[in-house]
């Protein structure tokens, strides 16, 4: 269940990258000079970092590290 939720979050973020709603406008200008489309994509990068943190915290493949310590089967 946890993994399914994480997959949904990642897919949702990927979809949110296609922000067609700010396609043809520069307004509002954030801080008076940052076009909204650029600001949105900058926020997207921060969100991507947060999602990566979620993946690392809740779905870290620690079994791989344990596995390499085990001997090879015959």
């Amino acid at each position, binding site marked *: 269940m946890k993994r399914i939720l994480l997959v949904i979050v990642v897919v949702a*973020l*990927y979809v949110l990258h296609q922000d067609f709603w700010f*396609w043809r406008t520069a307004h509002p200008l954030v801080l008076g000079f940052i076009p909204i489309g650029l600001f949105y994509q900058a926020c997207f990068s921060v969100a991507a*970092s947060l999602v990566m943190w979620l993946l*690392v915290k809740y779905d870290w493949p620690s079994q*791989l590290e344990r596995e390499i310590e085990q001997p090879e089967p015959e």
Partner: protein
Amino acid sequence: MIPAIVVFIYLATVLYIGIFAFRKAKGREKAEDYFLASRSLGPFVFLFSLFGTNMTAFAILGSSGHAFSNGIVTFGLMASSSGLVIPLTIFLIGTRVWALGKKYGFMTPVQMFRDRWECGHIGTVIFVVQAVLLIPYIIIGIMGGGTTLNAISGGVVPYWFGGAIVAMVVMSYVFFGGMRGTAWVNTFQTILFLLFGAIALIVIGVGMGGFTNAVQAIQSSPALAPLLTRERISPLYFFSYTFIPLSAIAFPHILIFCLTARKMNQFKKTVIFYPLCILAIWLPCVFLGVMANRVTDVPQIRAKQEARRVLATQGKTMAPEARDDLREKAAGDDVILLLLERYAPFWLAGLLGAGIMAAVMASDSQILALSTMFTEDVFAFYGGKRRFGEAVQVQTGRIFIVIITLFAYAVALRAPETIFELAIQYAFSGFAALSPLLVAALFWKGSTKWGALAVTVWTAAAVAAVAIFQQVVPAPAPAPGQNPNIVVCAVGGIEALSRTPAGTAVFGFMPVVPMVIVSALLMIVVSKITRTPRATTLARYFKLEAT
């Protein structure tokens, strides 16, 4: 000339770090130490060197140049999509490759493929395609070095000499320092160019009297206002670009870098901070690239804008050669350097120039990766290591480094493309199309060597086809407000294959989209009708997943 002197001091520092690392290395004649730093990199060096090795000349020069011509869309196209896709692939694929490398001693992706799919010569075919696709990446670094030194020195250092200096410095520390030297140099360089973005933004912003007026001026100009939106790029093209970062994990130098971590935990920081590092370097560069359009007192920038204007208004009636000439004049690869020259004090321009050089010189990892691949996938695989020993293998790797650098330099002197186009059109799309190899090898028991061969041959053929198509059908001139594409093939009134001002479109998508999809389909279909490896081989790979 003062900035150029600062840059030369920087180059000497880089050289020292590389050679210093070499002296500190123990057991340096061991291939694993020279090529993988004995799989011993700590979390800090691993994060910064892995990020740094993926940030090449176009992270600073190409991004600001692309933004100068295309506007803010550059950030969404290349930076934020990479900020999601690249750490995700490092998380899913990089960690697994690290574990398999640690367990079975792999030093290259091809070694893993050969073992996983029980193949020999098919691995050699994959090596050849990877090597051919990697070389443009190395050329980018040398071209960027030549452009940067030429601009920073105010033209005193010619392009050919600047490229030669960069090639020599990179070759020297890779030659002596191997992976350890390269990783430390990359760490130093990454810190420098991460600082670069913030400092450049502040200095140029202050110099321009703040950005608010500049943005308003751009908005009030009908020709420039679209640069603050994404209307010049189609949503399909924008979507296509999210396939390009799939190339990162398929690049041999990135995958080989994944093998250098001491522990798997070291991937955690890399995965989490990767999007923020991209944000820190790309956002200022893209923004400054757009703002350069408001700089009216730099003749070189005015000349670029004029070339862009003539291309848009009269390009249709021009000969293809004349259009290419104008495109080259309008290219903005050096706008960030021109902004620094205009607004930064001399001493700071030198430091910031060093920051640019740091990004430009990321070709070190690619050179080392090619050398590692040659010595492991060809020299060792075909008996060289067994006959001549490991010390000779390392020396062979060093000789290969010299040869490949000289070759890349020779090509860089003749290549007419802008830095950005060269990288995107050939290397990135090709490696993205190879990414199904990794997914299949690591996650699908049913994949076979014949599926891998089909993917590799298709990738090579598709890259060659796009290159030939773009040579045969010259790029049309951009036509604001109209569809400038040359439609070569239409299906039911829809453009199936077109030549666009920026490249090629297949049903409106960049070629990378069908290339990746067909690669994945070929892997599935061909694997389904051919025999899988033995159960004992599969057990070695998939018990990792079963636990």
